[in-house]
Each structure stands twice: as structure tokens, then as C-alpha cells.
């Protein structure tokens, strides 16, 4: 009888091993390491989880430079950056993409990047070039703005808000949901927008008024957008999101629609611009290829691929926006400005004061 048990266990182990080997076989990417991978050198790009690109665009780069590009995704922007800093000296990758202007100062202070004055910088407006030594080069930008539910405001017959000041008015009571700046990147961007508009002395008074007007705070963008926002079944018709959210709503609509269900407040410096940067990691052994990769990221093919993959805007002035973007996006003429160095220096104090005012 005991032998029977043993043989049963054996039998099942064999079955399990078989299943797992089949599973592993399925798991191996079918099209991945092409035969060239043994000969061609490997370029590693470290980035955050939201990075995306079209397969053929990357393949064209690999083809042209006879290189295999590997992407290391390392969590949200903050996590990815911190990991790159911890691995300093013996870098995990050759290139790091995705540090934004709220974290730029940390990356530069930690001396993460090697300078590289790419020839393509001439095609990029100077306002995006925040690092004069060209250690971090701008790639794209996105505007964190208030989004609102068009149908809600049409039905109630109220005008949607025009600027940050409107949100403290009685007619917008209990309508707004924002994210916690301590834990969410758009949440921090919105806090910075209020600091940009009202100054570091005045922003807390503004937030006091928002609290009196019953602002709702959640910790993450997903909860705000998919649980609290009226468009997706919540009870708040104004949410902090991106200016590129409306085209995403059209493209990812369940049944095809020709107008987005959401609008964006772009006036009155109410948006905060997040600029994302790329840099060559100090200590790379692939400097030449890394330079080629950065040139590629700043060049037209990649710049024009970004909008529909990552819902961000190209910094290269020659890049054309896709039709979905030109039709459904308004780019704010003026955004709230906060110096990256001031952000890194005051982040903790600003957030702490905000928490004490808003959360108590």
C-alpha cells in the first residue's frame, strides 16, 4: 500500500515536471532572440514600467546598428531611478530612460549620467533642455491636467471649471478627486501646479479652500480614474489625469466613438508639465551604441511612435502628432512652472505641509 502511495507521488511528480517544462517552453518568447543575437552586441535600456514602443520601430534600430536592444523594466519612475542609483559604478544598463523633471535633480546630484551633446538637440526647443551639461536629454513631455466628464456638465447645465481658482467655488463642491502627492506621480504634479500658481506661501491656503469644498483624495491614479471618476462609474466628475487621456478614451473605447467622453482644463496655468529624460549611465561599456540609441530616441521615427504607445508628446519640433492627438488634444499654452532643483529640495517639506493641511 505504501508502495502504491510512493508510485502515485512519483507519477504525479513526473506529470508536474512535464507540465512545467511545457509551460516554460510556452514561456520562451517565440520570435525573440534571433540568430543574430549571438554575434551582435547587446544594448541594455533601463526604464520604468510604462515604457512602450512599436516592435518594428525598435527592430529598425537593431537592424541598422546590428545590435540587440534589451529593456529592463524596473517599477515606477521613482523605483527605477533609485535602483539605477544603487547600481551606480556597476550599472545595470547602458542607458536610463524615464526620469522626469520631478526627479531630475536627484539623478543629477547622484551623478548618474555621462554628458552627451547629441546633434539632435538642435531640433528640440530650449525650454525642454533643463540640464545645461546635457547629462539628461529631454525625450518627451506630458501635461498633468484636470479632466472632466463632458456629459455630467452638459446634463447639469454648469460650465466646466476654467482654472484652479474655480475649483474652490460652491458650484464645484464635492466634484473633484485628486491623488496623494506622497505616493502618486500625477498627484505630485498637481500639487506642483498649485505651488506654481499660488507660490510656496499661498498653496496651503488654496488647499484649505479645496478641503472646504470637499475635495476627495485617493492614493493612486488607478483608483481616482477608474473608481471615483464619473466616466468609469464613480461619483466625481473632475479628476487629475493627463491632457492625453481623451484620445486614449477614444482609441480604447469599448464601442467605437468619435468624440471623447472627457474634456481637459488647459487654461490658467492649471497644468503641470512632466518632461521625461534619457541619459547614458556612467560606467557603460557601450558608449558608442548608447549615443546611437539616444540619437534614435530623439529622432523622428521614435518621436512619432511615442504618442500612441505611451500617450506622451514628442519634444522634437519636426515630429508630427498622430491624427488622434491633433483632433482631441489641446496643448496648454502656459503651464505651471516649478524649478526641478526646488522640487528635490522641498519635496518632503511641501508634501508634509500638504498632508497636515489636507489629511490632518
Amino acid at each position, binding site marked *: 500500500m505504501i508502495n502504491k502511495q510512493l508510485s502515485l507521488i512519483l507519477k504525479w511528480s513526473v506529470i508536474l515536471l512535464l507540465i*512545467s517544462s511545457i*509551460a516554460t517552453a510556452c*514561456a520562451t518568447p517565440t520570435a525573440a532572440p534571433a540568430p543574430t543575437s549571438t554575434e551582435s552586441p547587446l544594448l541594455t535600456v533601463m526604464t520604468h*514600467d510604462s515604457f512602450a514602443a512599436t516592435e518594428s520601430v525598435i527592430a529598425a534600430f537593431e537592424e541598422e546598428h546590428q545590435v540587440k536592444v534589451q529593456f529592463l*523594466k524596473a517599477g515606477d519612475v521613482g523605483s527605477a531611478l533609485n535602483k539605477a542609483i544603487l547600481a551606480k559604478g556597476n550599472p545595470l544598463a547602458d542607458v536610463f530612460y524615464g526620469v522626469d523633471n520631478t526627479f531630475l535633480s536627484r539623478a543629477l546630484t547622484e551623478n548618474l549620467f555621462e554628458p552627451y551633446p547629441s546633434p539632435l538637440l538642435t531640433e528640440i526647443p530650449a525650454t525642454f533642455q533643463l540640464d545645461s551639461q546635457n547629462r539628461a536629454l529631454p525625450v518627451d513631455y506630458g501635461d498633468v491636467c484636470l479632466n472632466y466628464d463632458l*456629459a455630467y456638465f452638459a446634463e447639469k447645465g454648469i460650465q466646466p471649471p476654467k482654472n484652479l481658482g474655480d475649483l474652490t467655488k460652491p458650484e464645484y463642491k464635492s466634484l473633484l478627486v485628486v491623488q496623494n502627492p506622497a*505616493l502618486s506621480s500625477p498627484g505630485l504634479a498637481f500639487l506642483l501646479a498649485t505651488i506654481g500658481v499660488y507660490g510656496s506661501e499661498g498653496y496651503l491656503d488654496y488647499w484649505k479652500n479645496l478641503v472646504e469644498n470637499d475635495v476627495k483624495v485617493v492614493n493612486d491614479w488607478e483608483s481616482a480614474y*477608474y473608481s471615483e471618476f464619473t466616466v468609469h462609474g464613480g461619483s466625481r466628475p473632475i479628476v487629475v489625469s493627463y491632457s492625453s487621456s481623451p484620445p486614449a478614451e477614444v482609441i480604447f473605447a469599448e464601442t467605437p466613438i468619435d468624440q471623447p467622453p472627457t474634456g481637459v482644463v488647459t487654461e490658467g496655468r492649471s497644468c503641470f508639465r512632466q518632461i521625461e529624460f534619457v541619459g547614458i549611465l556612467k560606467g557603460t561599456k557601450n558608449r558608442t551604441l548608447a549615443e546611437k540609441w539616444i540619437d534614435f530616441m530623439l529622432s523622428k521615427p521614435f518621436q512619432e511612435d511615442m504618442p500612441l*504607445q505611451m500617450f506622451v508628446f514628442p519634444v522634437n519640433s519636426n515630429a508630427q502628432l498622430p491624427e488622434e492627438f491633433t483632433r482631441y488634444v489641446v496643448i496648454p499654452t502656459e503651464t505651471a512652472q516649478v524649478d526641478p532643483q526646488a522640487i528635490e529640495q522641498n519635496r518632503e517639506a511641501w508634501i508634509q505641509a500638504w498632508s497636515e493641511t489636507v489629511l490632518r
Partner: protein
Amino acid sequence: MRNLLLARKWGSAFVWALPVLFLALFYFYPLGSIVVFALQRLAQDGGESLRDLNWAYLGRVFGFTVYQATLSTILTVIAGLPAAYLFARYEFRGKALLRSLSTIPFVLPTLVVAASFNALFGPRGWANLAALNLLGFREAPFTLTNSLTAILIAHVFYNLTIVLRLVGDVWSRLDPRLAQAARCLGATPWQAFWKVTLPLLLPAIFSAALLVFIFDFTSFGVILILGGPRYATLEVEIYYQMIALFNLPAAVLLSLIQLGCTLGLTVIYHRLSEIVTRPLPLASQKRVLARLSRPSQKIFAFLIIAFLFVFQILPLLALVGRSFVYAGWERGERGLSIPTLSFTAYQEIFINRRASLFYIPPIRAIGISVAYGLITVFLGLLLGLAAAWFLSRQHDSPALERLRRSLEPLILLPLGTSSVTLGLGFLLAFGKAPFDLRSSPLLIPLAHTLVAFPFIVRSLLPALRSIRPRYHQAAAVLGANQWEIARRVDLPIIGRAVLVAGVFAFGISMGEFGATALLTRPEYPTLPIAIYRFLGQPGELNYGQSMALSVLLMSITAAGMILIERFRSGEVGEF
């Protein structure tokens, strides 16, 4: 004879070396690396990073962490015991299915749980829609998110299965004649439970409660998403210090405080369990299980099943419903719009619409998830059995006995460790020779094993300890050596516990997101990663696809668990 003795000694040595090596290499080494790194940073800035810490605030965070974990644990145990009793003592139709379904919550990523709660109790969830439309409420009666209630319900939802399985396993092997004898001697059913059954169950209850407490104590996602910004646990604060502020010394200090609590608690637990553990009178399942015959039993069973249905299964069903139905929420208006049935989300997950380099074919994500799950089960059981077997024995050599005493509390530490801290520790530890593994995909199942390992040991220990020494003595008298005793006496007796451990290991691996997200990895996407990727972008279809993948994750996990439980249909577990 001498050779045999030597072999036995070496055998014991090998058995403890395996888990000790594993813990040393994949737990203490990375943890030590991050502590050393933090100390270096602290020395660089002359202690400034710790100077400005708001201790009054951190004290409140600590207080809340303990408070919510204690409350959650008590509720989970109270809710779990009657269900454990039902499963342990009665046979009824659909039992296996019900047991598997109630384990699914344990593996779901927090965002998915939040989504399912929202589909049920959210402002426009099924419950509120029904209340508004059918019951004539003027305002939505359920407001669940951003409250302590939401945190508690979610913790019970997640961890009920721990009590159900760990306590249920022991209960199902407890000889019912003991309680029957007490009844014959005039005890009321309540007295029989209180004086006979409960004391025998205490070790298992403590074991389950300890695990539940540690899970709740280090809770991150539930607090973040369902609790909202007014509630913070130590783990949330560690994340904030580590990621947002990059204040490593502060984050590591808080991690060590958290770890100290786990260790202290474990030590108390061991004192307690030494007092209450005793060999159990065991009985075959066949003798234990009864049919539901009397009306009172049927009512009891109905109530328990109804409870499980509402709290464990209904949120899952709401999620399944949400993945098929687009309610076309009438914005700003309350009222039930006509829901439309749609399979679009399920079709879309198989299409790489944007020709993305990072598109994840569902089959591939399933393959990777299942492969990781099986590796975790295999590694976890191997290490867990070795550790549990070593811990359950009295050892002749004083050195081994000392090792046993100090090893036991250490085993639980990985569960009580901040995954942010450990993730960065992995990076530091495995970033250079001799162990340059930092971007190896193998790190992921290893991290899963690290989380599952304490669980496996805790599932196995009560069972191993409950074996009467008499069985071992009898086998030894009949000439069996330690290996034969382990194989022929222990293994058949603990067979069920091994299956329970395997189910948990598989579940932990399938649903694990924290450790996976913290490792730097090339593209080896698991199902939870695919789910989060869709949730991170705006658009109805992205949301729908994440729901569809969640349903897929639920189904695959349930199938895997049912398969593992099928082992039981053999002779293992019966004796």
C-alpha cells in the same frame, strides 16, 4: 552499524543545511547589504537623514499598524473557525469547489480586489444600484472605500482561507470520539468544544493567527487603495521614505523596526505554542466526516455557506460580471442603465492592436505564471519539508538543538520584511560577483519561494508535531531508520498538510506582484504584471482587458489548486 549512525548524522546535517543556506543567501545576505549601504549613506550625511524624522507621526503610524492588524486578525479567526469546522466535520456536495473558490481571494492582486469591491459596493456598484433602484434609497447606502471598515473587510477577505485551511486541516484529523466522550459524560456541546476541542486546536489557531497577523501588519496595497490616504502602515511609510524621498537610512530603520516586531511576536508565539502543543489523537478522515442530517446542522451549514458566498465569492462574481458587462454608466444620474453583454475585452487581449514590442500574449503570461508557480511549489516544498522536519524533531546533539531553537523564529522573518527594502537589497547583493543574478528571470521564482517558504513551514509544523512519538518508537523498534520513518510514517500522516502547503505556495506565486515588481527584469511578464499594465492607461477597453485577465488569473489559479488537491483522492492523507 557505525556507518549507519554516521549516515544518519550526516543526513540530519544535510537536512538543516538546505533551508539555512537558502535563507542565508537569499534573505540575510540581501538584507545585510541594504543595511550596510544605508549605514554608509548615514555616515556620509552625518546623520542628517534621521534627524528630521517626525517621530510623533511615525508613532501614530506604528500604533495604527498594530491596531488594524490586531483587529483584522481577530475578525479573521472568528470568521474562519465556524467555516473550518464545517469543512472539517461534514461532507456535502460542492465542498471541494467551495474550498477552492474561497482560496482565490488570497492570490488576487490588490488592485483587482479593489476593482471587485468597487464593482459590488462602489458608488455605482451592483449593491448600490440595487438599493437605489429596487429598494428606493435616495442616496447610495454603501460607501466602502477610504475607511477602516474597507481595510478590515479586505483583510478578512484575503486571509480567511489561511484559518480555513490551517485550522481545518488539523480539525479534520481530530478524533471526534474525544468530544463525543465528553458529551457522554454530560458536557453540553459548547462545553465539549470549549474544554476538549478548542485546546487541541489552539496550536493550529495560533499558527494561523500569527500568519494572518504578519500579513496584516505588513499590509501595503489594501491600505493604499482601500484605506485611502488617511491611513498609513509602516510598510506604506517605508515605501514613501525609500521611493519618494530616497531616504534610505530612514526606510531601513523603519524596516528593522517592522522586522523586530515580527521577531518579537514570533518568539512570544513559540513560548505559547510550546505550552499548548500536544500530540493529537488522530482519526481517519472517513471516521471524522459526517453527513448533514439534522435540521440544526443544515441551518448551520447554510449560514456558513451563505457567509462564505457573500464575503468570499460574491466579490469574485461581481468581477466576472464586470468583465463581460458594460453598464454604460449613466453619468451623473443614478439609475440602472441597460447593461450590455460584451466579449470584446476577451477578444482584445489576444490582439496586439498597437503592434507593441511589449504586448503580452495571454498564453505566454499564463505559461510564465504557471511555470513560476510550479517552480515555487517544488522549491518551497523541498525547503519547507526539510526545515519543518528538522524543526519538529528533538535532537540529541546540543548544538543541533540550539540551532533548532534559534532557526524556528527566523523562518517567519521573510514574511515580515518590507518588500521594498528587500527588493533593493536583492539589487545590491546580486549586482556583483560572485552572484551577478540581478537581471536573471530566476530571481522571481526565488523571491516567490522566499515569501512562500515561511508559509509552507507553518502549514507543515503543526501536523508534524502532532504525530505521536509512539509511532516513531514503534517504527524504530521494527528496525526503521530515520529516513524510513520520515517516508513511511510521517509523510503519509502529513500528506494533507503537504497539499495545503503546496496550494498556498502555488497561490502565493500566482498572485505575487510586490516582489516581482521590485526586481529589475527583462520581459518575463506574469499575469499580475499584464493586469497592472492595462490598468495603468485610460480607456474603457484597457479597464475591460485588465478585468478579463483577472478572471483568467482567477480561473487558472483555481484550476491549479483543484489539481493539487486532487492528489488527495489517492491514498496520501489517509492512513
